[in-house]
């Protein structure tokens, strides 16, 4: 048996086409018995090395065996006109159908390659930003797959118990409280992502807890941002602080 590079054959049809081409077989007169034996040897080899997709090959091997058996029957199947049917015809049609799409795939690859020589406008010349404010949010260019992917995000988000995580890091909620106050004194209003960007995970968690604590105590106010996974953090103004909490620290918080 020829040594075959396994990865060369994506599927059983590829392997059959390989046999046909290697032995220069007449596709309309495939020696099924011989091909079946070789195919089975290949499948056994696959099973040994536990290759993915062996099931597809086993299925095809079964098909080959059934063709082989039908070829040995004394009375061949007849079509509606009473003509004998070559049991191999269906397989040949399938192979040719596959070849047809392999050709089409090559055509597509060539088209794709040519299209790659044509460059569309780059970001430097993009003017969308100039008009961004007037861009309403609408659907469309969205695929159903996007919708499903969004559902996946909702269903797979891993929310670690933050208390547990904080135990293992050197950042304390109290320390992060001071950090947030310093940042707010400097920037007035900021976003959570801006506060926590590029920091260690423990830092992010401690900062997050500090912000939540401060919001609960009325030291800061939180507001939505455009991004779903971010929010604004601002010092609460005197006039809307419920208990006058940290009035001394409160400056403007708008803009």
């Amino acid at each position, binding site marked *: 048996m020829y040594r075959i590079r396994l990865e060369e054959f994506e599927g059983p049809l590829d392997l059959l086409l390989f046999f046909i081409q290697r032995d220069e077989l007449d596709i309309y007169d495939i020696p099924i018995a011989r091909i079946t034996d070789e195919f089975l040897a290949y499948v056994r080899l696959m099973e040994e090395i536990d290759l993915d997709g062996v099931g597809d090959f086993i299925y095809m091997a079964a098909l080959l065996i059934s063709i082989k058996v039908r070829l040995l029957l004394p009375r061949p199947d007849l079509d509606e006109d009473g003509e004998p049917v070559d049991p191999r015809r269906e397989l040949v049609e399938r192979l040719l159908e596959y070849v047809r799409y392999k050709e089409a795939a090559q055509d597509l690859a060539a088209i794709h390659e040519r299209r790659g020589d044509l460059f569309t406008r780059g970001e*430097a*010349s993009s003017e969308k930003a100039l008009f961004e404010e007037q861009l309403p949010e*609408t659907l469309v*260019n*969205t695929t159903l797959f996007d919708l499903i992917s969004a559902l996946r995000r909702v269903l797979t988000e891993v929310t670690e118990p933050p208390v547990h995580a904080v135990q293992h890091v050197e950042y304390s909620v109290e320390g992060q409280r001071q950090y947030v106050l310093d940042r707010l004194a400097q920037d007035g209003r900021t976003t959570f992502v801006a506060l926590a960007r590029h920091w260690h995970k423990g830092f992010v968690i401690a900062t997050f807890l500090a912000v939540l604590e401060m919001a609960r105590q009325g030291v800061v106010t939180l507001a939505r941002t455009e991004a779903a996974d971010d929010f604004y953090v601002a010092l609460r103004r005197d006039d809307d602080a419920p208990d006058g909490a940290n009035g001394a620290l409160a400056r403007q918080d708008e803009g």
Partner: protein
Amino acid sequence: MEMTDAFEDWMGDGRAQELERAVEALIFASDEPVTAGQIAEVFAEVSRETRPTTEQVERAVDRLNAGYEAAERALRIRRWAGGFRMSTTEEVAPYLKVYFSYERRRRLSRSLMETLAILAYRQPATKPEIDFVRGVDSDYALRKLMEIGLADVVGRSETVGRPLLYGTTPRFLEDFGLARLDDLPNLREIEELLDDPAFNRERARLLMLRGLDAPEPPAPDEPPDDDA
């Protein structure tokens, strides 16, 4: 404007024209403002000839702009942020404003998409239900989806306080190319499509997403079903 100099002479008209084409293409396609030096370098590398000077690149830009102006084109090459970039003329701004103000084919933001996904699979749902599934307040997202016409109020729940029930609109189906809600991939199909080990079927079940798996019995505390 000087239209010839040693380089252009040496290059000949064809070479000068070729430089113009390279200049135009690079400025058009670049993701950041391109400098004259960068253009000269690329041109020299591709043509395997002497590197043009930055002045020669500048002049090519001038010639291009003069050509645009003469042909009354809507585009100009601007010198901005230390490099060149292409932009439209002020005269055509009104067209762009109108165009960009139309409802255009854009991706929905992540939060809108998530809210829409939950709504699609859990409708009719109340806002607290959606908030619960997402873990965040969905007020903005829900309002936005209604504005766009993808979601709408479809009734009132029979539970305490009779909160509003939300659902997707026919427009939603239309935009996603579906004939009916039934055509949405069900839970088993989603699992197959995503093939993500992290996709949590149990969580989906706990969150009472319906329509996901038809044969499943409804969870006991499922909110009343209006459109079943």
